[in-house]
């Protein structure tokens, strides 16, 4: 009997040690200490034994039973700690649950990125009212009276304010530059500021033309600045937007408020300058006008053009965002269509 008990016990110990799962452990438990377990059955044989042997064997059996139960419990704890809380077929490839999804308008995003860049270079951010007078939209920018260039920007005039002298005529600003004169009038030079804002043109709209669009103007005015300093500003804008160095070229362009004036082109980012349908096969895309503020504009702002000069660029944010993401219809920006806007994180 004693040997039997010992052999069952050592057999049980091995089985417990070998058990690899809780269910395996459960079957070990029933095999030894369950109702039909081998230790339980041995217990049932006790009455058949000599009365003298019974107490000792009973004690031995109880100890064995307790030991097995303890070992099983210990093993179960050990298995539990090792095991995962979920079944092994848990799918880790299902998509995550997003934090509630809002976002800034893609043009706001671009504008803030550029603001950060220019702020780090010591530029202030300037904003101005959108209704202006013809005086600031054209006169102060060196547009001669009755000059055809006044018409090149078809302007939205306000009812009841659309005739009379230029300080009486009011419109939705056709460009930002008039506001820059306001800034210069009310601040002391040197200036370096950026001026983001929406401008309006009375045009027929299509995928590439909008009545309301965003400009981003950057202006630096100081003593002894050469027009070539402007290249630094242009590079800063484009490398921020595209995340890499983008070749640019400056060519002759005419705008009444700058002298000299430039059209600034960037290398086409679709074909890398080789020529494609996007850039009309020239490899370059016109992105912004620029130039040194015309002496008459500086005078209008109360500055002596013999002392001060500067550089100005004015970039269309809509077009930049379109190029950056391949958006093919400028009207989407003002559509308030969430199917479009939600794409920009």
């Amino acid at each position, binding site marked *: 009997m004693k040997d039997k008990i010992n052999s069952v016990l050592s057999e049980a110990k091995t089985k417990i040690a070998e058990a690899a799962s809780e269910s395996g452990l459960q079957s070990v438990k029933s095999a030894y200490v369950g109702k039909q377990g081998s230790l339980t059955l041995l217990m049932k044989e006790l009455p058949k034994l000599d009365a003298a042997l019974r107490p000792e064997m009973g004690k031995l059996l109880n100890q064995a039973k307790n030991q097995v139960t303890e070992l099983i419990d210990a093993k179960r704890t050990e298995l539990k700690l090792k095991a995962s809380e979920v079944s092994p077929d848990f799918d880790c490839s299902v998509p995550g649950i997003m934090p509630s999804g*809002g976002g800034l*308008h893609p043009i706001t995003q671009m504008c803030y990125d550029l603001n950060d860049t220019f702020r780090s270079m010591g530029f202030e951010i300037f904003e101005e009212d959108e209704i202006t007078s013809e005086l600031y939209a054209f006169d102060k920018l060196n547009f001669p009276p009755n000059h055809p260039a006044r018409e090149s920007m078809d302007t939205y005039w306000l009812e009841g304010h659309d005739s009379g002298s230029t300080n009486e005529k009011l419109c*939705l600003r056709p460009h930002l530059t008039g506001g820059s004169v306001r800034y210069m009038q009310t601040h002391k030079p040197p200036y370096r500021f950026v001026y983001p804002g*929406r401008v309006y043109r009375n045009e027929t709209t299509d995928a590439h033309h909008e009545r309301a669009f965003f400009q981003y103007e950057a202006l630096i005015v100081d003593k002894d600045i050469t*027009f070539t*300093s402007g290249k630094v500003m242009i*590079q800063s804008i484009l490398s921020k937007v595209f995340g890499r160095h983008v070749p640019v070229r400056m060519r002759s362009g005419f705008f009444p408020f700058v002298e000299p004036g430039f059209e600034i082109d960037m290398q086409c980012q679709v074909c890398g300058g080789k020529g494609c349908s996007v850039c009309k096969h020239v490899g370059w895309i016109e992105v912004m006008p620029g130039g040194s503020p015309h002496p008459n504009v500086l005078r209008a702002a109360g500055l002596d053009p013999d002392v001060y000069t500067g550089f100005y660029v004015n970039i269309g944010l809509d077009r930049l965002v379109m190029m950056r993401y391949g958006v093919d219809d400028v009207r989407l920006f003002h559509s308030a269509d*969430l199917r479009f806007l939600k794409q920009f994180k």
Partner: protein
Amino acid sequence: MKLSLSWIKDFVNIPEDMDLKKLAYDLTMSTVEVEDVEYLARRFDNMIVGVIEKIEAHPNADRLRVCKVDIGGGEIRDIVCGGSNLEEGMRVAVSCPGAVVRWHGEGEPVVIKNSKLRGVESYGMICASDEIGLGDLFPAKQEAEILDLSAFDVPAGTSLADALDMNDVILEIDNKSMTNRPDLWGHYGIAREIAALYDLQLAEIRPFETDVQSDFRVEIEDPDRCTRFMGVEMSGVYVKPSPYKMQNRLWKAGMRPINALVDITNYVMLATGSPSHAYDADNIVDHIVVRHAKEDEKLMLLNDKVLDLCTDDLVIADGEGPVGLAGVMGGAKDSILPKTERVILEVANFDAAGIRRTALRYDNRTEASARYEKAIDPERCEQAVALSMQYFKELYPELKVTGFCDNYVKKLNRAQIDVSLSWLEKRLGKHLTNDVIRGKLEKLGFDVQIDGDNMHVTAPTWRSTGDISIKDDVMEEVARMYGYDNFDATEFTTTFTGAINQKDKSLIRNIKEYLAIRCGMQEVYTYPWMNDVFVNAVLQSTDGILRLSTPPAPDLSCIRSSLLPNLCEAVAKNERYFNDFAIFEEAQVFFDRNYTSVYDPTESLPEQRRHIGAAFASDVKDINTLFREVKGVLEYMPRYTHMEAFEFRKEEKPVWADNVVWLNIYLGDKRIGDMGLVAKKVSMDCGIKNLSVMLFELDAAKLQPLKSRTNKFTHLAEYPETDYDISMLFDSNVEWNDIYDAVMGQKKASALLKEASFVDEYRGKQIPQGKKSVTIRLTIGSDEKTLTSQEIESAANQVMKKLGKKMGAELRTQ
């Protein structure tokens, strides 16, 4: 403007091997934007001149013929054609397989293939002029007329491009890039610029000379408005078509040939940039006077438009009255007609601003007025007269000049500018030698005298009408001729006087980022104009709203005084695709009041403010949840964005709001905005079908950014605090504000009470009618010891007792 390269070559000896891509690039970089370089002959690829040998009936169609066409090299092909003017022996334009045509001159281009027409094999097609883009050059006189090229004496099989002199290159120049360069508006002007760029020889146009003596004269009454008038009177002319070469060039430049007399004037304008006009001399009574129109005078133009003139208009008049609108368009009375035998050629110069005013006044802008209004130099008249007379004599060998005059009443002075060379170097950021500077300018026709640091520059006449007037203009000329590509970027330096701290700008950005990123809302942009439907629905009045005088559409004339109408429109538009969303917009709003300007005393601008508006739309949340969500966004905003906290009051219901669910937003005593549920009727008027919509709008300029962060530190509680929830029954109309006041107000309900917060409220089953159950979370604790459960309960009891006494609340027992 379209320019023919062969025409430019009349004036400058461009080398045959010149890379045209480079020419276009160089012109673009330094002068004007060349938008396109078109090899014209490519339009006529696979097109040839064929000769119709024989015409046979089509076996299966009455209207069609089968033509046996000689296509060169003795090859005869069958071509099926429905032309109405087919004749044997006729030379015709044949589009062979591979050619690109447009059916009847309309629609998309089509590539010609060998095909069967009603069962008969046809080798390409015999073309009408408009099918191959030549409708303006060879206008058809009748229906289904094919292009008759019999006048072109070329053998069958000659390529159409060769036969019609189309081996040319068209440069298309962006007109906008030369609004400031009146000298460039013609082939000669561009030729002059090319000559300067490449140091090439520019052809001279020899002046016209005559010794004719007669009483022909022209009178100029206002020398400020008409600075020069050259007139040539001649006889021995008549109406006939101009030679093909002239027609061909007019067409390449985008004009339609008319007759030789008119074509010469247009041709000379395209060549020199100087407009001219030919009058039927027999219709001129007495002599020509250039004068202001008189009050009540009328003029019928060439295009039969009758104008009621005003005294600001300059007219060409004869003894009877106006015969032309100076610099804009000729009159009907003296125009060239088939019976014309004598003409007076006018080559004149007019004041730019005056021409522009007149052209705009009658909405009658012409090629001539477009050129005059850019300020042409009067010296150019001589070129134009010389070239015109050259062609008149060529086309009419029998012509006689019977009169000539040159009234040059206001001489153009060449612009004189002094430029300091050290200033120039500073602005260029690069040292250029005097020889380089002088060389660049002299090539452009400037006279240059250098004396020490001073450079005295005299601009050529063609640059002296306003284009070149200050030293910055001279600098631009030097820089562009030197090549902008040849200047490197230079760094700029600055002194910092302190960190840039623009709290107002940062606040708006913080708010927008808070709404978008923290609150999960989407920023939208809408236009500044509002649709009348939404103005009427949401604002319900147009008082104080500014309007556009030429709106994008008749119902879009109001410009916004509030962001809410457009936000409601955006909600309505998005309802189709989304049923639970929140949007916001930050933009300017405008009011027809408080006109003022801080910048110029004569200016007066309306009140303009910056608003932030938002719309929350859902058909899944109940109103209570939606309301609390919106209020939460507003309540947390000041804290997140570091601004003065605002409070909610119920003073005046916004017109668009539901009768119950609305609040005014106050900062101190100032109302800075509203929030509320959109009333059912408003929602319906906006076309919003199923969504409940909450709105808020804030006046961003009234928000006050904090000067720095205002967080407060309190020591961590030394003894534990316990949350203890109580639920009590209140009268249904009791407000949380009052409950909170009673518990936490001046006299706290218990000294151990740290905070009381709203958990939820409940109306419905198990709650008696007219009552609601409010669950309140009490935070109870002491600074001196750990409380026993009895002490906690007794503090809670004190609260309940006070609520019972002050608010009539009962403990919820069921």
